[in-house]
């Protein structure tokens, strides 16, 4: 997988407030970056800017490769059993073999449970499974460890390592420590306006 994610001189404004400015990031195949910072400093906004969902107030983002985003919005139908809710995205993504990710994240037993009955951690695992099955090179992860127990956390860290080995990029916004391969940490507070 060849991928590249370059952000140049990004500034982000929400409402009347400038959250950060002058943020630059360059990621090539196989690299993982953690973005840290206090609540409200703009980590989620940064992830949405990188994903192309939010226009930066200034600066540009260049992407080579498909992107996958996991944030606090689940985008799974709450009334459907998990298996069918995930099946919609598998159909959209053209994923033929969803089984392995479900196994690693221990979702097999939950496939018949309606999404609204899942716990926070289980929902997060479902969103991560969708990301893995999408098979895209650039992962944008906004607080991916929220609600995960230590076992799921380890399993997911291993999945990120595997993803980067295969030439993928992972950008993780999290205030929690997370084990990344060849870790690089950027503190967003340094760019606070």
């Amino acid at each position: 997988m060849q991928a590249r994610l370059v952000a140049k001189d990004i500034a982000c404004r929400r409402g009347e407030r400038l959250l950060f400015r002058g943020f630059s990031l360059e990621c090539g195949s196989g690299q993982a970056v953690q973005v840290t910072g206090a609540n409200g400093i703009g980590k989620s906004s940064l992830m949405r800017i990188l994903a192309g969902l939010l226009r930066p107030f200034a600066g540009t983002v260049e992407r080579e490769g498909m992107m996958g985003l996991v944030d606090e919005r689940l985008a799974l139908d709450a009334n459907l059993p998990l298996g069918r809710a995930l099946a919609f995205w598998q159909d959209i993504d053209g994923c033929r073999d969803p089984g392995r990710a479900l196994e690693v994240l221990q979702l097999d037993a939950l496939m018949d449970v309606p999404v609204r009955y899942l716990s926070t951690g289980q929902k997060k695992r479902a969103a991560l499974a969708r990301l893995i099955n999408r098979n895209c090179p650039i992962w944008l992860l906004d607080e991916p460890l929220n609600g995960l127990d230590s076992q799921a956390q380890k399993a997911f860290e291993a999945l990120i390592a595997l993803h980067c080995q295969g030439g993928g990029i992972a950008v993780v916004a999290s205030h929690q420590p997370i084990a990344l391969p060849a870790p690089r940490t950027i503190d967003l507070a340094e760019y606070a306006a």
Partner: protein
Amino acid sequence: MIGVLLRRDLGLLLPGGRGGGSVLPLLFFLAVAMLYPFAVGPDAQLLARTGGGVIWVAALLAAILPLEKLVAGDMEAGVFDQLHLRGVSEELAMAVRLLAHWLAFAPLLLLATLPAAALLGLPGETTRTVLLGLLVGTPGLAAVGLAVAALTATLRGGAALAGLMVIPLAVPILIFGAGALSTTGEGGIALAAAISLGLCAAAPFVAGAAIRSAREG
């Protein structure tokens, strides 16, 4: 891709579907047709003359009921964000939803028009004109509903506001669609169809732009 989207949208919107789509708009529509003779009295001639218009008004108001869950839920859940990342534009998602919305409420409404016409004692010719008018008018009602639902999705009390906003926008369809009842010939129906087509063409773009601008808010 479009098939996958349409299947999900239909599951969400069809009566009895998992999204809580219900037959309430239909029952509401029939209830109006049933109440009207009680309110104006059993004058068969009066009912036959005004019944077609009543059916039109009832259909317009029934079209407002399903707007609440048309866009807002998916917007909140981030479904459109995930679709955007997969290269599915908001416009395409909205065009598919427009089709699903129409399929979920119009065919049943047309069917319900037959018992409603019987309740009002409409002659066969009038019933035919009403059915034809509703057939070409409902896509326009669906389009206005979708666009307004997307525009008001992030507002508190958006559903009530959406209902009020649909009414003036739907007036042209009502004028020509129901107007065809009092004039002979099919000119009114053709004009209602033209307005309907225009609205259907514009609605996905309006709704798509509304979803994109809601992200910035």
